[in-house]
């Protein structure tokens, strides 16, 4: 698979009445990658993800998703990617099926496509038996799976995942990771952020470490471990970002 999934050029951004968070940031992510974005709290991971998904607008620089500028063709680009936010982003009063019907329609799918994709996803994520029960009665793990199903219903070429497995048990986490790997094999580029570094080692083939709005490391995991002579991602993370708390 050739070409760039994401190209960020000379991006500068700051929140209103706050100091500059990103200054002349550049980043390129290839299509088909399983890209992990890591950093301490307050480093700018969520802000960068919000900028890439168009949730926050920016004035300086450019972001291209699959060759479309996010500034100018926002709604067109929105068809190409999926987003799985950290918060449960669905209607808890509805059932998984009703949620997928609604979000599927908003993702430009027709009724037949929604039915087909819902059935597939419920099978893959083991939600078939509960598809008609209100989500509010679900466990955290089941809610995570519904959250993921909604993000991928329209088979996006690019999938943003913000802490997709936080608060779930080992079995559910493995189930989600397995699904994401399969999804990537079919050509979906994954942009993933998490504090679960062991999980990231398992899933990601390219990594960026970000701290105070700057990318301090960017390469494959193996190359980074060799370059910094570290055993694992956690050791590398502590070495590069320090041991002091960053979210004070």
């Amino acid at each position, binding site marked *: 698979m050739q070409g760039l999934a994401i190209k960020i050029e000379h991006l500068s951004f700051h929140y209103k009445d706050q100091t500059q968070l990103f200054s002349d940031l550049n980043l390129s992510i290839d299509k088909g990658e399983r890209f992990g974005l890591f950093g301490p709290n307050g480093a700018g991971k969520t802000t960068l993800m919000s900028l890439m998904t168009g949730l926050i607008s920016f004035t300086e620089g450019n972001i291209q998703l699959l060759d479309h500028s996010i500034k100018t063709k926002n709604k067109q680009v929105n068809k190409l990617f999926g987003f799985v936010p950290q918060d449960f982003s669905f209607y808890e009063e*509805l059932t998984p099926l009703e949620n997928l019907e609604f979000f599927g329609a908003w993702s430009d799918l027709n009724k037949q496509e929604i039915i087909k994709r819902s059935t597939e996803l419920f099978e893959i994520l083991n939600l078939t038996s509960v598809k008609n029960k209100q989500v509010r009665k679900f466990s955290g793990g089941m809610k995570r799976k519904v959250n993921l199903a909604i993000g991928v219903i329209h088979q996006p070429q690019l999938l943003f995942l913000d802490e997709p497995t936080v608060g779930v048990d080992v079995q559910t986490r493995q189930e989600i990771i397995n699904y994401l790997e399969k999804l990537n094999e079919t050509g979906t580029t994954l942009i993933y952020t998490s504090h679960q570094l062991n999980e990231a080692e398992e899933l990601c083939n390219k990594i960026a470490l970000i701290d105070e709005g700057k990318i301090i490391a960017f390469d494959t995991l193996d190359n980074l471990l060799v370059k910094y002579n570290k055993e694992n991602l956690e050791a590398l993370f502590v070495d590069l970002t320090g041991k002091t708390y960053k979210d004070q």
Partner: protein
Amino acid sequence: MKLFATILKDVRILLRDKMGLILMFAMPVLLVIIVTDIQSSTFDVVGKNKIDLLICNKDTGTLSKELIHALDTAGMFNLSVIQQNANDKQLADEMHAKDIIAGIIINSSFSKQIAAKAKATASKALSSFGLEGDTASLDQRTAYFDLYYNPVIQQSLKFSIKGALTSAVQIVQSKETLKDLYFSINGKPLPDSLQQQLLENNTSIKEIPLSSNNENVILNVTQHNVPAWTIFAMFFVIMSLAGSIVREKLSGSFIRLKTLPTNYFIALLSKQVTYLKVTFLQAILIFAIGIFIFPMMGLPALHLPHNIFALIIVTLVCGWCAVSYAMCVGVFAHTLEQANAFGAVSVVILSIIGGLMIPSFIMPDSFRSLMMLSPLHWCLQAYYGLFLEGGGLKDVGTNILSLLLITVLLQAIALLELKRKKLI
């Protein structure tokens, strides 16, 4: 497809929100039943039922007895007479004990005073005819009687009681004056038959309520209350709709909606369609209660206007205005608490200045201009035009236009704010 899916989502969420449904349907129904029942009893006190009047007659003359007779035959009072030597405190105690709202103590000089005044009036009349009459002196220093009343009674009711008392005194005094005149001229007492004929009250007033279609219209507490509280219920959807918009804005689902290839305008359109249906259902429910349940409770039944098409149009326009107001509040509110508190208080204030809770004709002039700003005022006028005046669409055209103007303004404000927040 998107709009249909969004409406379906909103309806499903609404149907599962039991508290919201109670607020939008059960509460207004209870409100309309309770208020109409209470007001019906109040109207009965003023209109249909007689007012209890306690009398202490300290006068031993015949004219005070004639006064009591005149009050009795006036048909407005249920009279109770207490012992002659009772004082004002005993009268007050008796009023409290028997829950009587008005009482009078007829002064001991009542007959003398009336007789003197009648004599003086008769003499004046004779003089003006060129005849000679007695020149009796007139002592008007003492009141004929003292009126005691419960301070909770409305000013209008007090005026009615005073009017009826004055009228009864006039009758006694006129009779006495006539007797004096007749005796002075003819030297013999006025015959009873002539007295009856002269004093007979032939005043007849035909009551004609204003009607746009020259048909008989029904005026009762139900016709007044049901439209008013239907409007209140419609605007009370703010508690659910504004909350729903704020909840959606605050929830994670809103973040996802912003990343999807659909404009949030669809979500707002869906909410408007969904809640417009809610306001229409509210109106049907409350009207049905007025038609079928009120008679079972002994209340007057609601009579729908003859022009049902106009009623449907007015109901839809009122509903759309209510929904637009709720949407506007929801768009501006940052928290659920803000939306609920502002929503509830503002609807109550708008209904007060709109004339739903206090009749507009008793409002001070300054409030009357403020009233024009309340959408509930225009809703009420439109409904009254149909329910009370028997009008059609043409007759309530001004009200409908005003409501549409307010609705468009509210929609524009909400959309501009969404645009400012980059949500559409």
